């Protein structure tokens, strides 16, 4: 299976999302019980993510440019594929955000009901902190980004 430069650059994006999810999401998962101000080394982690992303993309695209010296023209087919895949990504993100808002709402409702039971331990376990919200949003972003890129790749192979 021979891949074009555009298809390879999509795979680079997919790889980035997967690597990001595997390396950085566990950190946010571990800290989801805390508020943002209480998360240890959050600023360092953000700097790490930023530097890591810059190095990854610079290296990946530099290798791609060396491997494919010829410049590929961007045309109307690319625009059509991009608009379709970004539309899917946008719809997925919007839809999952609505579900997330519903989840937060039910969580707060359940919390109020638990308050009536006077069980403090159970009540506290239903906390939704800034860290938790950040973790869920990052998971949503990673998932929608992977699905969008895979759909884009599929369109490049089939259209």
């Amino acid at each position, binding site marked *: 299976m021979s891949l*074009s430069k*555009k298809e390879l650059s999509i795979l680079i994006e997919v790889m980035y999302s997967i690597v990001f999810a595997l390396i950085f999401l566990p950190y946010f998962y571990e800290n989801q019980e805390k508020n943002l101000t209480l998360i240890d080394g959050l600023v360092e982690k953000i700097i790490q993510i930023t530097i890591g992303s810059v190095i990854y993309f610079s290296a990946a695209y530099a290798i791609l440019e060396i491997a494919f010296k010829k410049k*590929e*023209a*961007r*045309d*109307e*087919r*690319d625009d*059509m594929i991009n608009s379709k895949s970004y539309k899917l990504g946008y719809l997925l993100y919007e839809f999952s955000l609505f579900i997330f808002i519903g989840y937060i709402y039910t969580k707060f409702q359940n919390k109020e009901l638990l308050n009536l039971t006077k069980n403090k331990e159970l009540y506290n376990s239903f906390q939704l902190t800034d860290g938790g919200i950040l973790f869920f949003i990052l998971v949503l972003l990673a998932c929608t980004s992977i699905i969008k890129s895979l759909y884009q790749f599929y369109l*490049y192979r*089939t*259209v």
Partner: protein
Amino acid sequence: MILKNNLKEVRQKKGLTQEELGTNVGVSRQTIISIERYRYKPTLELAMKIAQNLNIKIEKLFYFAE
């Protein structure tokens, strides 16, 4: 009705490669391949550019088939 075309035959008659035709009309080789395989329907602008480049009437190049 399906939009079909004679692009492959006409292009080969003119002795052009997919890469050359793509460069002439400002699109990638993949786009020409997709049009030839009926996977992608070009815009009117691109269809006219291709027809002009191959020196053929657009209705001879693109046609509807049952």
